[in-house]
């Protein structure tokens, strides 16, 4: 099977490469582009560890062919740091509130939390839980993940207010 040329924007940079059409986006990110933030968990579109942001939507990159991503804007957890490389707000809140134990689900959780807070800057606890229902964590019991996302919302809103 001949390879296809794929080009998209990844964390603000144009990237391109050759891939067989059957290549899944997660494999292209991790193995061709060496972007290993998004993880391969279940590989069956259940766990959300491979979550990336594609054109403003959280998607499971294990269930997207690389051709489907051609021409799109993609953000991974690597793209959510501050410009100086320090932890972004959501990343920092996960650290501060102990929103991870083994850390395997964390890139997917943070990428999903980013989109959730873009769409709903003031979520209730219930809305946070419903909004991260596509991301499984087997360590934390979710309590501190939810706390970290609620704290992120508060901090992002305070920063927005200060800027205005």
């Amino acid at each position, binding site marked *: 099977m001949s390879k296809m040329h794929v080009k998209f924007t990844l964390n603000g940079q144009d990237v391109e490469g050759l891939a067989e*059409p059957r290549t899944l986006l997660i494999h292209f990110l991790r193995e061709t582009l060496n972007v290993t933030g998004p993880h391969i968990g279940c*590989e*069956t579109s259940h766990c959300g560890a491979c979550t990336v942001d594609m054109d403003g939507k959280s998607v499971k990159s294990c*269930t997207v062919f690389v051709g489907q991503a051609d021409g799109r804007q993609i953000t991974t957890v690597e793209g959510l740091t501050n410009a100086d490389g320090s932890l972004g707000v959501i990343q920092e809140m996960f650290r501060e509130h102990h929103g991870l134990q083994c850390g395997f689900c964390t890139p997917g959780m943070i990428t999903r939390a980013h989109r959730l807070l873009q769409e709903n800057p003031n979520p209730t606890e219930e809305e946070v839980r419903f909004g991260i229902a596509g991301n499984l964590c087997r360590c934390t019991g979710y309590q501190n993940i939810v706390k970290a996302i609620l704290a992120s919302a508060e901090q992002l809103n305070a920063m927005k207010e200060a800027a205005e």
Partner: protein
Amino acid sequence: MIPAGFEYHRPADLTSAIGILQEHGDEARVVAGGHSLIPMMKLRMAELGHLIDLQDIDAMKGIAVGGDTVTIGAMTTQHELIVHDGLGAALPILREAALQIADPQVRYVGTIGGNVANGDPGNDMPGLMQCLNARFDLTGPDGSRQVAARDFYEAAYFTAREDEEILTAIIIPIPAPGTGSAYIKQKRKIGDYATAAAAVLVGDGTASVAMTNLADTPIWSEAAGAALAAGDIDGCAAAMLGAIDPQEDMRGPVAFKKHVAAVVLRRAIDSALSRRS
């Protein structure tokens, strides 16, 4: 979990997509959100030579709320159904059902067209479309035709759609003002298919009832609707339980499924009645 090789196509319009289908016959499949097809390809339960990605076909996108009907492009995602303003007022049951499908990531890419066209008895929209008496627009090499949702499903994964046709749009009549509606789904966990789900519309002397994942097609029962329209809830439940044909699987034995079916149906009826005005 690597699928077999295939050639990828991304046509810009419907005519080109149908042309590719004609050229490659049953070697080709269309993909919308891909969250049914891609997992099957990864498991190698589906192998195909040509994958036709419909994402660039703008004519298959969008929601138009008219006076009597709502027309929804097949490529409209579940997320778009949930956040659309006018749709929530015209057909609140659609939003209620879409929110119970899978999880946020899947709803961002999963489409209503893929959900109804795949013929998977576990999918939620087919039963709901039968309850609402929707029609599906099918376009092929010889033009377009419409098929009623109530006539579309033949068996699990077998539908009235021909191989060279694409399901392009869904046309739903808007229920009369004051009609109460509810979609109730029992599932084991987030993201699961229904153990049983019920879609109920109840208006002034009218009613429609359909259920999901309790046979190899969705089940719309005319007798159940007629009983409910006459105010006979027990008769409605009896007619529906007589119409379903659940099979034992990991969601439980037949007796359990019938029990759950009766519970969700009665909850949906109660909820729809409480929303009637």
